[in-house]
């Protein structure tokens, strides 16, 4: 593939997908769990969800989102390994460093996926196929022999992603423009990038299960089913995708930012939920400040136990939001806005416990997020809703707050997250420490 292009968009795009990333990293680190069913979970608590499964566990039917107790039932020999994001991010950095040796046009799509545009550099390395093979060899040689990746090579990002999905693990698939339908038509709709569960299900209900069937549909018919999305769906069905490989994703202003916390024990205790929210709000604010952004809208969702979160359902997910009259990057303000939403969503039972309106009254997952952003550089000094006033004749409290936050950030940047923290989130740390001991016992000694 050294000469000529894969035609149509005259490009060579690679999509690299690390296979069962978290589980493979754990198996690389620990040879005793290689070749065995492994599930990576936040905790060994029976209600916790499996975040990543090894191929051996997947073969038993354990997948992402399976609860630990379900996973143990269907796969009795399953080894639960605690989530170690530090390790995964470190491996990700090593992996990205390798990719950048072949082109500066690398888009980090997620912790275990990346797109490369090697159109201008493929000749230097003997072609796109050789680049793909070298990447595979270097990952094994420089990071770990147990780490594999699947690579798709195609003229656009959509087809490259179809290619990497086509053969797992350790696959390498080339999709030429004229052969695209052969690959596209074998993919289940929900597995195609850009389609998603909702549209996939909607189509499934009327018996449409492949892109081939979508191509045969009239525009008006498609439009009546998916509205304005039909044009995009038509492009996907034809294998067309015009998005460039984005090299500067980190600088793009996101639409929203959120933190989710899954409770090891579903709870209706408002003090516990608020304390979790306080810490999550602080994490959110740290992320905002790190990116030089401020947000105006705060949203909160409390997912009842027994429900999964696939897209928002404001009724079911106890969802609410608050638009503040100013932009903020302060954790306490985010929390206070979250508390207002919380009090709108929940009601008190006759003994004063706050119970969520929907579901069984117990909350399994709490999500707090912010949206409606502005870059802090473009902002004037904000007026705050909460306890603002004139201090020392002319200084606003918000200015002091910003200085305090900056001081906090400097210390925490130097010594690690939450080295310095406010007293009101101390309770959450004590609680988490107690829980950690409990979780470790459950994780490492499942019999207890």
């Amino acid at each position, binding site marked *: 593939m050294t000469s000529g292009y894969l035609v149509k968009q005259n490009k060579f795009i690679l999509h690299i997908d690390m296979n069962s990333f978290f589980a493979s*990293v754990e198996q*690389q*680190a*620990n*040879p*005793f*769990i290689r070749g065995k069913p492994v599930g990576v979970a936040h905790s060994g608590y029976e209600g916790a969800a499996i975040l990543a499964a090894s191929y051996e566990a997947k073969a038993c039917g354990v997948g992402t989102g399976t609860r630990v107790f379900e996973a143990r039932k269907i796969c009795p020999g399953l080894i639960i*390994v*605690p989530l170690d994001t*530090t*390790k995964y*991010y*470190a*491996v990700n*950095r*090593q992996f990205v460093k390798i990719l950048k040796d072949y082109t500066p046009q690398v888009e980090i799509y997620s912790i275990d996926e990346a797109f490369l545009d090697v159109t201008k550099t493929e000749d230097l390395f003997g072609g796109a196929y050789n680049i793909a093979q070298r990447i595979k060899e270097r990952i094994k040689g420089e*990071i*770990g022999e147990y780490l594999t990746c699947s690579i798709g090579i195609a003229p656009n990002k959509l087809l490259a992603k179809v290619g990497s999905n086509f053969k797992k693990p350790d696959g390498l698939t080339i999709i030429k423009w004229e052969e695209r339908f052969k690959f596209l038509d074998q993919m289940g709709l929900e597995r195609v990038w850009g389609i998603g569960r909702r549209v996939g299900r909607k189509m499934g209900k009327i018996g449409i299960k492949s892109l081939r069937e979508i191509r045969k549909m009239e525009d008006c018919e498609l439009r009546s089913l998916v509205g304005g999305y039909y044009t995009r769906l038509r492009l996907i069905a034809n294998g067309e995708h015009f998005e460039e490989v984005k090299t500067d994703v980190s600088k793009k202003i996101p639409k929203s930012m959120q933190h989710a916390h899954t409770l090891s024990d579903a709870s209706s205790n408002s003090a516990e939920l608020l304390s979790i929210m306080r810490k999550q709000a602080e994490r959110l604010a740290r992320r905002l400040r790190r990116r030089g952004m401020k947000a105006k809208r705060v949203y909160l969702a409390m997912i009842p136990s027994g429900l999964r979160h696939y897209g928002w359902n404001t009724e079911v997910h106890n969802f609410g939001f608050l638009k503040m009259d100013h932009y903020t990057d302060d954790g306490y303000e985010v929390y206070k806005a979250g508390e207002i939403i919380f009090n709108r969503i929940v009601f008190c039972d006759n003994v004063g416990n706050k119970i969520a309106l929907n579901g069984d009254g117990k909350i399994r997952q709490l999500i707090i997020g912010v949206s409606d952003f502005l870059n802090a550089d473009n902002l004037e000094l904000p007026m705050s809703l909460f306890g603002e006033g004139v201090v020392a004749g002319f200084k606003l409290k918000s200015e002091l707050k910003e200085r305090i936050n900056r001081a906090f950030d400097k210390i*925490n*940047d*130097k*010594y*690690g997250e939450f*080295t310095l923290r406010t007293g009101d989130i101390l309770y959450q740390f004590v609680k988490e420490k107690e829980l950690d001991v409990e979780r*470790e016992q459950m*994780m*490492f*000694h499942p019999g207890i």
Partner: protein
Amino acid sequence: MYEKIHQKVDVQVIFLKDRPVVRSFIWKNSHYPISSVNLITRASKGQMPVFLFSVSNEKGAYELRFDTDNLAWWLEQIYYK
């Protein structure tokens, strides 16, 4: 079975080409020879870079941490059959 330890240990390391190879460590007065270095990752604790070495021998797997600011070694976690 995994067990979290987080205790300081003495470690013997050699450098082969540009790669550090952990040969053994001493923990609680016992000597643990290492037969394989499985994964080396660079992370940070605040601004301090730390290196995590996932190593193993025939008895178990171990995670060692090297702090770059005080050149100290820690045994973070062990796994034994």
